[in-house]
């Protein structure tokens, strides 16, 4: 009995629990209860654990060892600030997204009073300040640090990840000012070098120490062991593990994970993304090997208006608009007609999210003729695409939804995968794999490979 581990996801809509037998590397049971984070997060948690206990006979011992991730209470909301948009601002954004955050604002150059007011109004959980290579520009980051040091309590957690030569001065700006300021390595220490791992670690630490407390999520620690990362981080960890393998157990190689949901559609690519054509030059800041994008306007429940806009002009089933209204109100598809509409919306979410995530080819005209340059990652050669998230897992035809991520000749400049195998996270446990990977990576990998279904 003590080889059973519980993994919990405090989602924005549902609190989910999965019980895994670590010795047999088997899923014992899963439970899904509407989230109660607004009132008391432990209510839904208790109910979900009760359901699990009924089917798997777990006791308080297992509960005490349970690990959780969370995207509840708005998730981890961050604002990024850097210097040049294509350089340190982008690097800061990659760092935040890679840590599982929702980037609610990304600013460049010296901040104005008005911008600071807007950031205060947004009340981010963490502000990430970058700017200047190490030994490079000092003015912008110091100016911005000064502005933030004078800001209201709405901005209280700050991570500084820019030109290290400015740190002494920035430290003195924040002395005795009550804000929680953490210094870490520059997200872009040199031109062309992205170094987001140290920043990712600090973000996660801060999330575990402060953020979950502030959101009432830490209350769950009275029952379980800990909430150790934002949910998207758990999915990203799982993706990395499944791609790279661990300690002699092979992974699936470079891959993409697509995760549409009620509020957002996330795409994760674990891939270098080098140009596949010899005549193409990669330009711009290199993208992270583990790259995550979040489309905040592509949620099945919250953004039905955006999705309807994107579908305009295509053929839709009868009663389409009223059925979609129902999804917006939280209704789940039941009839065949409703499933068809759901399918259509899910496909759009996947197609657009993949478009935005994948790299692009640009033709530039030079004195020596046409040249091809690549922005972002070339994902045309990716051989594995994994679908997770409610709209795919509970769809009537997951494969069809995932096919919306494929490369299309009509849009050849978008470097999406040409010929991948498709897999489904059938039991909706990817987040659990990510959590388990933090304590038992080999078992997590075996379980992932066992339960990912090729479709």
């Amino acid at each position: 009995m003590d080889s059973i581990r519980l993994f919990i996801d405090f989602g924005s809509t549902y609190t989910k629990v999965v019980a895994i037998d670590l010795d047999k590397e088997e899923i014992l049971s899963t439970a899904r209860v509407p989230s109660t984070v607004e009132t008391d997060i432990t209510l839904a948690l208790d109910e979900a654990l009760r359901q699990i206990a009924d089917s798997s006979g777990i006791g308080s011992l297992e509960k005490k060892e349970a690990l959780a991730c969370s995207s509840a209470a708005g998730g981890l909301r961050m604002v990024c600030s850097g210097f040049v948009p294509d350089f340190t601002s982008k690097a800061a954004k990659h760092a935040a997204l890679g840590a599982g955050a929702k980037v609610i604002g990304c600013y460049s150059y010296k901040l104005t009073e008005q911008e600071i007011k807007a950031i205060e109004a947004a009340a981010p959980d963490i502000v990430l300040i970058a700017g200047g290579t190490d030994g490079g520009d000092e003015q912008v980051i110091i100016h911005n640090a000064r502005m933030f040091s004078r800001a209201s309590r709405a901005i209280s957690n700050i991570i500084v990840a820019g030109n290290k030569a400015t740190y002494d001065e920035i430290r003195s700006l924040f002395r005795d000012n009550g804000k929680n300021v953490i210094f870490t390595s520059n997200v872009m220490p040199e031109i062309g070098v992205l170094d987001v791992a140290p920043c990712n670690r600090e973000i996660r630490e801060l999330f575990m120490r402060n953020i979950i407390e502030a959101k009432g999520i830490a209350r769950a620690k009275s029952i379980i062991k800990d909430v150790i990362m934002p949910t998207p981080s758990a999915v990203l960890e799982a993706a990395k593990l499944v791609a790279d393998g661990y300690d002699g157990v092979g992974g699936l190689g470079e891959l993409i994970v697509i995760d549409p949901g009620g509020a957002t559609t996330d795409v994760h690519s674990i891939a270098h993304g080098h140009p596949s054509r010899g005549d193409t030059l990669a330009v711009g800041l290199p993208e992270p090997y583990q790259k995550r994008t979040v489309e905040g306007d592509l949620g099945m429940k919250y953004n039905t208006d955006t999705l309807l806009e994107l579908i305009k002009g295509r053929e839709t089933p009868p009663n389409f608009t009223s059925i979609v209204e129902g999804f917006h109100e939280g209704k789940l598809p039941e009839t065949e007609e409703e499933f068809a509409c759901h399918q259509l919306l899910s496909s759009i979410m996947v197609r657009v999210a993949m478009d935005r995530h994948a790299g692009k080819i640009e033709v530039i005209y030079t004195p020596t003729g046409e040249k091809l340059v690549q922005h972002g990652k070339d994902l045309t050669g990716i051989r594995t695409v994994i679908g997770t998230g409610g709209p795919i897992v509970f769809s009537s035809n997951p494969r069809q939804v995932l096919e919306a991520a494929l490369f299309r000749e009509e849009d050849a400049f978008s470097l999406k995968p040409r010929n991948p195998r498709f897999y489904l996270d059938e039991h909706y446990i990817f987040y659990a794999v990510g959590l388990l990977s933090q304590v038992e990576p080999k078992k997590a990998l075996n379980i992932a490979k066992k339960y990912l279904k090729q479709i």
Partner: protein
Amino acid sequence: MKKAPTVITGTVGSDVHVIGTKVLSRALRDAGFNVVALGMQVSPEEFIKVAQETNADAILMSSLYGMADLDLQGFNEKRLEAGLGDVLLYIGGILGLGRHDFKEDEAKFKKLGFDRVYPPDVDLNVAINDLKNDLKAKGKM
């Protein structure tokens, strides 16, 4: 003792020649400069963005395919807009097509905003000395 000045090198535009800029970068490093070497096919915009983030004191562009003036139309305006009016701009190499007088190249690129222009057979020590003098005059060395 001021810290070592930061200089950016690279071959501008769609030019793939890289030896000139590599030799120059090596000489600059030996002379004690902090060199950010961008290699070949560097767009004018990239020079500007890199100069901003690294707080560079000078940009030394190389070009060997004779068409740099096409690549650099409007460059001066862009760099001024980016707040880089105080950055030294040098260019060297084969700066025009066919047989012509170097003086024409010099005039053309000075008009495009460059402080100094060099022919392909320049002694790099001369260029580096010019750089040191220009930086000293600006109080950056």
